[in-house]
């Protein structure tokens, strides 16, 4: 009986220690601060449904295509997609110069996701300034795949 009690107490203490340790570690190292878009590969996006409206206004004024990016904080593929694909120097340059970028958090902007029939991240939707869908790119594609798409859509819309 005594042994059991002792073991139980040790385990309980260790579990509490573990809980405290992981909690503080997460707060210190893994806070996914959203405001500066650091989680979105350092690319500036308009955010949420209001950002989408704003985005279309800018797109119409400047005649630029809109790229809507659906992501989520728990999405393991998104992180790589952001650094390697969206963050690819060529892709990033075109996106930042010639596109209006909008990001949707799948956990928060659920209505938008439902409206555009997006059920998982990462997911890109390219639209003209009027909001017509030009192309859907589901999944974590690589830069070689995305580059011709962003180039073509830019040229299509400019024309």
């Amino acid at each position: 009986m005594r042994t059991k009690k002792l073991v139980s107490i040790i385990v309980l203490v260790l579990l509490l220690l573990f809980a405290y340790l992981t909690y503080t570690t997460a707060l210190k190292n893994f806070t996914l601060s959203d405001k500066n878009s650091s989680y979105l590969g350092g690319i500036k996006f308009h955010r949420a449904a209001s950002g989408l409206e704003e985005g279309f206004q800018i797109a119409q004024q400047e005649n630029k295509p809109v790229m809507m990016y659906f992501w989520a904080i728990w999405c393991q593929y998104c992180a790589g997609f952001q650094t390697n694909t969206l963050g690819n120097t060529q892709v990033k340059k075109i996106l930042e110069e010639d596109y209006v970028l909008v990001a949707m958090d799948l956990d928060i902007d659920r209505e938008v996701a439902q409206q555009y029939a997006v059920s998982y991240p990462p997911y890109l939707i390219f639209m003209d300034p009027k909001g017509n869908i030009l192309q859907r790119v589901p999944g974590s594609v690589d830069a070689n795949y995305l580059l011709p798409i962003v180039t073509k859509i830019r040229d299509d819309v400019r024309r």
Partner: protein
Amino acid sequence: MIPLGDILLYAGLAVSVIALVGLISREIKNIELLNKLITPAIIAGAGLLTFSYILLTYYFVYSNFAYDYVWQYSSADLPLIYKISGTWAGQQGTYLLWVWVVYLSAAWLALTTKHVTALARRTQIITLLTGMYLIIITLVQSPFKLIIERPEVVDMIAKGTLPPDFVPEVGNGLNALLVNFWMTVHPPLMFIGYATMTIPFAAAIVYLFTKEDGWEELGRQWARFTWLFLGMGIAVGGVWAYLVLGWGGFWAWDPVETASFIPWLTLTGFMHAASLHRKNKATFSIAAPILAVVSFILVLYAAIVVRAGIFNSVHAFGDSSTGTLLLVFIGVITLVSIILGMRRYFEEPDKQEEDRGFWNKTNIFYVTLLLFVVLAFISFWGISFPAFIQITQGLKVGVASDTKNFFNIWSYPFTIILLLALGFCLNYNEKEKEEQKKTLFIVIGLSIITMFLRTENFYVLDHASPFWAREPALYKMIGNISVISIFPSMIYATWSTIQSLRTYLRIESIKPKIKGTGIAIVHFGVVFILFGAIISSNFTHTIESANIPLDSKGQLVDIGNGYGIKIIDFSTHSLTETKNTPSGAVSISEIYGNPEKYASNNVKISGKVTNVANVQSPPPVTYTTYLKINDGTYTDGLWAATQANSPLEYQAGLELTVEGFLIPNFKSNSTGSPCTAVTPCNLIVFSSPEQITEGTTAPGSYNVQSVRLEVYQDNKKIGSGVAEYLQSKSGSGTFPLVDSSITGTDIYVIFQGLGGGIVPLTLKIIPAVNFAWIGIVLFAIGIILIMAVRTKSKGG
């Protein structure tokens, strides 16, 4: 007016009240007035719920879109099986399924025990209370809510844009990811598992309260049943993730799959505790009932995680209104069980049994129970504290730079200890104890030494992953452990299981023989699953973005690292029953897939206009109108062009049907044309204005693109099959090619939908994953063997 389905639920509630009053008045005042009514009332309740579930199924089968839930999760053109599975596609339906099974188990309890014993009556009271609470939750979010009660519909009726008896003609449709065989069985397995946990829980509460004997026997088969269903439900979810989501693995520590795994772990702990408790009532007299209660609480918690939507998960499609009700339920039960558990703990006389030292079976079993609790806690904590931080501080945090790293590093050491305990316990023999201890210490030593072995990349955490560098020092330390360290304990566990199987097989009498064999098989399952999981997740070879041009059909295309892919065929079809092309319209993906078949021929396409360009052309023609038509079967639409004397006024968003001549590789010299010398249009439909009609003959709402392909390694064929991509208005899904070989290695190819004449593929070579599937099958076989043997509990 209250819908019929809700009336049935209210009636179920009413008869439960009768039964409950009858039971309680008999318990407290020994009034036997309502005695005769108790069993019939409970059976009536079960009948009413059965009827309501059949009613819901009926609405689905006959696509009765007057009901919001039916409209939301079904459409008339779905095959029958998906209409039926639509009943459990959403939150409302799964609650109904859950409460229905709870009532079926209440009816079983009534019929088998006839409420003769106090234990049976009291267990029934708790079961009924649970059932009634769940009926209320079901009523709050009723699957029988009418579509005209939807806020936006109410608005439109008030404005007069919709008639007051509005019934939509078409359903919203089932999410494409759920249109899959595994998804038709996954939710019922899970929720039946949740429901069958009720009786073991109720009996355990009664035992904690009044020390009623026989509680373990009453709940035993139900606990095993739950273990089987919950386990299989989790496994099927894994199969689904593997075959549909294209995760490339079957386990990703997603909050929802993890949430269901937690009660399964504590339930496993309970079954270990119960196996000793039934032999000696004093053993684990508190641990066993507490584990049963905790498992039930965690089942409720899992239901919140699945449906409440506060957790960041791929499943998050819930609504939080009933989450609060479940949370209250959890709060009450937790409080009650803590009070009862404490009372029992202090009441229990401190037994002055002889100190047999640490090394005896009870103690090692106790360590095993604690290990299950520890593993459950790691998972529980890992999915809970980020949600807690988000709610309390409004901050989003991750548990590690890569979510799965957190669970893997913390679970890994305890998995080894669990295997060591398995190896020691399963073959435990009091007489050879000293010998066995020696073996255990050797294995422990080997496990520790092998932790430090260096390999290319076979560690708890993948050192090649971009996440590795971002992990904190402590996580790196554990992540640096070599996974070779799993093998000593794994071999030890296997050897011990073989030994125990041999012992059991030597037993003459048939019942213990079958049961022992079952126990051994389940433990073989553990080894198989761990082996499959660890090897497959560490040695998967991935070649991403193998983009094969469709033109190269029939040729072997090199995709690097010695691998090659040959596309044999591309085709499209509609999943649903409605004819894809009622008036001869061809789906655009079909045209892109087989241009040689349609080029220089007349085709008819139909879809939405996504782009319009009017171009002034040189005389004699004055205007060319380009219309991009998209029918949703192909990421990019198809251009159609027509010429007229004045620009044609077509707006984007209009639905059109265009008939004309399909021309490949078209270039125009006019400025403003989408098809130029630099960017020629691969395919374009040339039509005359008369051949353009408004309205669409839409292709079916579930379109499947399939690629038949062969995979080569060093010019030798290593696999073949079909990879599919399903697109529907409610989302898209991938159905990868999975070709298993006899060595246990899977060739796995994900196809993400044709785009721009390119077939985007991801190739994965996944070794040993089949061991995990075998392990799951062993789990099922083993527990069924154990359940088949009904042994009498001593003194029960």
